[in-house]
């Protein structure tokens, strides 16, 4: 997704990076702004039906694992504040002055730079065909598609199919672990946090094209943040419309990531029984 400084020595760049990514965290519902083009990442329940488990209430869709809720909430509040005064206005300005077509070109280019990392993950997931397709996409779009601005490959029946390390770990059976809202990175869980660090560390485009010590790396990060925030705008508005934006973002992020992993594993989603409310209904359970 984005670049990260690999050298703590570059303090200035690092600080700028911290600020920039802090903003990104405000774009928090990063997960909700999944690369817009990767729409088949949405689960389409490809597996044969499985009988629902007898115990409805522990379905994955309703599971909340948030032991650090107090700190997470503070971090969320801070990030939303930053978004309100800084990143949100910048993104809205960008959206106001550019037509959809231009923003689509930008999104395509950002996605294209992530494609090599996608290939790595398809390979690690044991999906050679997807890896081949993503490789072809990268080659075609980087050349005929003019540095990725145009998704020519999609028109050649090679639609985008995103993948990252968090997803790869998920397909290997890793559990999400605790939910985290990191001020510098936004919503994630332990699994996806480790995944995201690896995404950055192994990113071939960063290794070849340069990290934040290069103009390319800085420009890429800035454009990625802007694009991510613009794509996240509808999701962010939905979060702000809710009663408990923190809980809503947590729920949506968790579901989105689980769906993304199911998209790779082909597993059927485990849903709660619709008509049976959870049994444990203590009249008063204030959160810590």
């Amino acid at each position, binding site marked *: 997704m984005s670049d990260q400084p690999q050298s703590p020595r570059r303090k200035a760049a690092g600080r700028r990076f911290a600020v920039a990514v802090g903003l990104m965290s405000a774009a928090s519902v990063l997960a909700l702004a999944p690369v817009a083009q990767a729409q088949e990442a949405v689960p*389409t329940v490809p597996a044969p039906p499985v009988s629902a488990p007898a115990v409805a209430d522990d379905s994955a869709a309703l599971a909340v694992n948030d032991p650090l809720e107090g700190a997470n909430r503070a971090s969320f509040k801070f990030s939303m504040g930053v978004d309100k005064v800084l990143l949100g206005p910048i993104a809205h300005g960008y959206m106001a002055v550019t037509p959809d077509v231009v923003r689509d070109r930008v999104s395509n280019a950002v996605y294209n730079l992530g494609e090599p990392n996608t290939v790595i993950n398809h390979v690690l997931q044991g999906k050679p065909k997807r890896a081949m397709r993503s490789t072809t996409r990268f080659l075609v779009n980087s050349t005929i598609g003019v540095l990725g601005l145009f998704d020519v490959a999609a028109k050649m029946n090679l639609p985008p199919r995103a993948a990252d390390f968090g997803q790869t770990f998920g397909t290997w059976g890793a559990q999400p672990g605790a939910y985290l809202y990191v001020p510098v990175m936004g919503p994630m869980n332990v699994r996806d946090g480790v995944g995201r660090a690896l995404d950055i560390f192994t990113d071939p485009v960063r290794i070849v094209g340069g990290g934040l010590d290069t103009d390319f790396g800085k420009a890429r990060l800035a454009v990625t943040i802007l694009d991510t925030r613009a794509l996240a705008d509808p999701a962010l508005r939905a979060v702000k419309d809710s009663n408990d934006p923190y809980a809503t973002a947590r729920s949506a992020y968790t579901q989105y990531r689980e769906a993304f992993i199911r998209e790779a594993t082909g597993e059927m989603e485990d849903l709660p029984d619709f008509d049976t409310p959870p049994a444990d209904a203590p009249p008063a359970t204030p959160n810590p």
Partner: protein
Amino acid sequence: MTSSPTRRGANAALLTFASALTIGAATLAGPAFAQARDPGAEAFVQAKGQRVISVLANKSMPDAQKKQIFKQAVDELADVPRITNFVLGKYARTITPEQKARFTPVFRTYAENVYQNRIDDYRGEKLTVTGSVIRKPGDVIVNTTISGGQIKSPLPVTWRVLGSGQTWKVVDVQFKGVWLAITQQQDFVSTIDNAGGNVDVLINQLQKGGSNRR
């Protein structure tokens, strides 16, 4: 070693499986899961889902009239009482009849406003059913795509429908992996939790229009 051919076989099987999945996901309506489909539920979503989308996509209709027809279309599509109960989560067991009577209309208005705005962000024109999966009898997941209008490439939307035969109702909608009713439930339950279990706090907040005007 005997494991080598076995592993090769397993790999071949995996590959076949993966490609079947890929092809299946690409065509969606493929015959691969034909036996698991429910034509009744699919026809229902096709008809009633399309209606809601058509109402929202209609640019010539005056807003007041649109709101009214949207409301009717939602009633035909969705099981509003069941959803109203579901979004309360564990508090559906403890809510008093008086609170329920206040919550029901307030939730309805809130949901209509919020979802009408949200759907506006992704306004499409055409709903196409691409398949369905029977979770268990009477509980079906219908896969669709929405296209046309402002949507550049077909947008997958999944519907959870409960019922049987010709009588179906939608109870939840999934978009980019996120179920709306489930998310709504977690929002509400967390709000009530943080109010020490007091449902009135949620009701009052909904009346004011969500956290924005808190």
